C-alpha cells in the first residue's frame, strides 16, 4: 500500500489491518510516534490524519491510504520548530518526554480547529496520559500560544 506521511510517499508491504503505529515505527523507522498502551487509551501514539488527532496504535494502516498522515517528525519545518513545539521548549514542558509527541500532535490538532479553546475545551479534548505530570506546563504553554495569537490578530 501507499501512504503519504509528512508530505512524502512511502510504499509498504504489510497486512492491511496492521496498525499505523507499527508501520511508522518498525517499517519506516519513524520512531517519534510512541507505543504506550496499544488500546487507544493513553494517547502516546497520536498522529494526525487529514488534520484529525488519531491514535495510531489501533488505526489500520490501510484506512490511512489516500489521506495525509502527519507525525511529530513532520511538524517542524527544517530546523524551525512549530508554534506548539516552540512553546513546549519555552515553557520547559517535557520531562521524560515519552508522551510528548502524542501530546503535541493532539494539541496541534485542537488548535487548528479551536484556535482559542476554553479551559474546559482543552481539558475534555486532551486526554493524553503523562506519568511525569507535566499537565500544568501543558496548560501554561497552550495559554501562551493562544495569548500570543490573539495579540497578533
Amino acid at each position: 500500500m501507499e501512504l503519504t506521511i509528512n508530505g512524502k510517499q512511502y510504499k509498504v508491504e504489510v497486512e492491511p489491518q496492521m496498525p499505523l503505529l507499527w508501520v511508522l515505527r518498525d517499517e519506516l523507522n519513524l520512531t517519534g510516534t510512541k507505543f504506550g498502551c496499544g488500546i487507544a487509551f493513553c494517547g502516546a501514539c497520536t498522529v494526525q490524519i487529514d488534520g484529525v488527532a488519531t491514535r495510531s496504535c489501533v488505526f489500520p494502516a490501510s484506512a490511512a491510504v489516500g489521506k495525509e498522515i502527519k507525525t511529530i517528525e513532520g511538524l517542524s519545518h527544517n530546523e524551525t520548530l512549530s508554534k506548539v513545539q516552540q512553546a513546549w521548549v519555552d515553557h520547559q514542558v517535557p520531562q521524560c518526554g515519552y508522551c510528548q509527541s502524542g501530546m503535541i500532535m493532539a494539541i496541534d490538532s485542537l488548535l487548528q480547529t479551536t484556535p482559542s479553546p476554553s479551559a474546559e475545551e482543552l481539558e475534555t479534548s486532551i486526554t493524553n496520559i503523562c506519568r511525569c505530570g507535566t499537565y500544568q506546563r501543558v496548560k501554561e504553554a497552550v495559554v501562551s500560544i493562544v495569548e500570543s495569537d490573539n495579540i497578533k490578530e
Partner: protein
Amino acid sequence: MSKSSKRGKITRRAFIISGSIVGGGLALGLGGIAYSNHKKRLFSGLGFEDAQALNPFIFITSNNKVKLAVARAEMGQGVHHSMAMLAGEELDINPELIEVIHPQVEGPYANINLATEYKRNSSSDGFHLMQKIAYVLPYIATGGSTSVRDGYDHYRIIGAQVREMLKAAAAKKWNTDKDNLLAENGFIIHPDGEKLTYGELAQAASEIEPIDKPVLKSKDEFKWLGKDSKRIDLRSKVNGQAQFGIDVRVPGMKFGAIKHVPIKGARLERIVNASEISNMPGVSKVIQLDNGGVVVADNTWRAKNAANQLKLELEDTEFEKTSSNDLHTEMTGKLEDDMQVVAEKKGKVDTVFKANNKHVEATYEVPYLAHATMEPMNCTMLVEEGKVKVWVGQQAPFLVLNAVSKITGVSKKNIEIYITYLGGGFGRRAEMDWIQETAQVAKEMKGIPVQLVWTREEDMQNDTYRPPAIAKMRALLDEDNNEVTAWEHHNVMQSALRSSIRRNFPIMTPPPSKDVNSSEGAINLPYDFKSSKIGFSLIENPIPVGFWRSVGHSINGFFTESFIDELAHSANADPYEFRRTLLVKSPRHLHVLNKAAELSNWRTPVHEHSAKGIALHESFGSIVAQVIEIGVDGNMVLLDKVTCVIDCGKTVNPNNIEAQMQSGIVYGLTAACLGEITFTNGKIDQANFPTYDILRLKHMPEIVTHIVESDETPGGVGEPGTPPIAAALCNALYAATGQRIRKLPLRLSGFSFS
C-alpha cells in the same frame, strides 16, 4: 594522556589518563577520592571519539563543542542538564551548549552518594569500604534522588580542573602566567584581548597535569547555577528525535514479544503450541524461558500478536490459591505481634502507654502500586562471538553488565552498554528482569540484533510493585494536649529492598534488620516526641516488589502525616499550629511549614464545602511542606490548588525543581486517588490503563512552588515532592467532610475526582 587518543584510534578500554583523574581530597568524600589514589586508570572514551579528553568527564572537539560524560539515567528528572550546569559553571561555558552523553559502565562515574547513602552518618569504616567497593563495581546507578547530591561538588571540580588546564595551555602558548588569563564563555582571554577557543587549546591542555584542588567560583560569581536554565534535552523531546530504548534501530534487527506466566512465582513447563506459532507469518523463532514464552518476528506487531496466542503450561504452584484478601488477613494478623525490627526507640514507650489508656490509635493501609512508566520495558541486544552490545534505558547499568555477562558467557570488558533516554523510570528501571530476558533471547538469535518490547499488559502485570503496607499507629498526648508523650508506629509490609536485591545482587541481600527502606520516613521525624518506638514486620510472598518513587517515604509519609493530623484534631488544635509546637527543635522544618501556611493563606477560611490540608515530610535530604485546597460536592472531589514549599539546600536549576515538585505531586495524587494493584488466585487483576487509571489534564490542581533560599548541602528533588501529598489530601478531606480516610486509594471510599 594517551598520545594515541586521536580520532579513530581509541579502542575499547585502552584510554589511559595519567595522574589523578579527579581531585583528591574532595569535600564530603564525593566522586573520586578512591580513584585519585590510582596513578593510572583505564576508561574507554567510547562514544567520545571525535573529541579530546581532558579528564574522563569533559571532552572538547576542535570546533569548540564541549561534551560531558554523565553516567546518570535521564528519565525526566533533568539530571543531564543539571550536571551540565555544574560543570559548565566552572568551565565557564553556557550549559545549554554542552552535549551530554551517557558513558560506558566504568569506575570514574560511580555514584558514591548512593552507594554510601546509609553509611554516611556512621563513623565506622563502612563508609570508606563501601566507597572503594563502589569504584570497583563500578556502582553506577541513578536513584534515591542522589545525582546532584553526588555531583554538586564533583562536577564543579572537574569543570574547574579543565578550566585551569586550558588556562595553563594558553599561558604556555602566550608565554605568560596563567593567573593573568580569564576563562569566559568558551574562550581563554589574554589581558591584551587576544582570545583562543577551548577547542583550539584542548589538545595542548590535555598534556597539562590536572591540579587536585582547583579554586571554585564563589556564589556571587555564578552565571548559571541557581538560575533558571533551559534543558538541553528538550528540543529533541518535542520533535521526535530523542532516542528512547524502544526507538533503537539497528540494521538487520528483529522484534520480540513475550507472554509471561500469569501466576506469580510459577515456572513455565512448556509451550503447548510452539510449532504452530513459529509457522505464523513473519515469525522467526519461538523461545521458551523459565518465566514465559517469547516470539521473535520481523516487526513488533506480528511478534506481539503471535506471543499473545502462545499457550503456556505452568508447573503447579501454591500461590495460585492466594488472593489479595488472603494477604490482607495475613498482614492484619501480624499487626498485633511484636515488631520484627525496631528501627528507632526513644524512652520507655510501653510504660507510658500502660500508665494511661487515653491514647489515640489508628490503622492505615496502602496497596501494591505499579510504576506504569509511559515507555513499556524494552531492550535491544546483539550477541556475537565473544562480544555483546546492549541498548537500553536503565537506572543501574552496572547490574546490567553483570547480568548480561553471566547469561551470555561474554566477559564484561567485551560488553558495550548504551544507555538511552528513559521514558520514565520511577525506580522500575533500576531492575533488569526484562534485560535478562532479552539476553537469553539474543543469545538464541546470535548475530541478529533483537529488540524485546513488553506490551502494556505485560508491563503492568509484571512490575516490581511498590509494596503494600498496613500500619498500626498509637500516640499519647499530655494533659494539656501540648506534647506527644508517646508515639508508636508498627508497619507490616513487604520489603522492597530485600526483594530487589535478592533479584539483582543476591549475595548482598540484607537481613530484615538492615532494611532501611521500610522505616525511612517513619523514623528521624522532626517532631519532638517524648518517647517513641518505630519498627516493622516483614511478610514474604512471590509478588516482586521494588523501589517506587520515594520508596518507603511514599508509604510512611502518608501514615505519619495523617496520624499527626489525627492527633491535632484529637487535641482540638489547628493541624498547622499543632505541628509548629512539635517542631521546636527543627528550625528548618518549621520554616518550610510556616512558608507553606503563609503562601497558602492557611488561616483564611475557604468557602463552604472546601477545605485545606497540610503535610510536611523530609526525604532524600530535602524538606517539603504542601497545602492542598479541595472542594467536595457529595462524592466528587475537586483538586483545586497545591502550595508546595521545598528546602533542598543549594539549588542548581530552580525551573527544574519546580517541574519536579509538580511531577512528584501528580505522581502521588494519582496513587492517592486511583492507584491499586490487586491479585486473584496468584494473577494480577489489572492489565492496562483502564483498570489502573492515571490522573489527566482535567484533574489537575494549580500547583504553586516556592523554593527556600538556602546554603545548606544540596538535597534531592526527584522524589521529595511525592511523600506528603497523600496525607495532605486526606487531611483536607477530613477538614471538609469529617471523614478520616485511612486506606488508599480514595476511590475505594467512593470518591471520584475532577
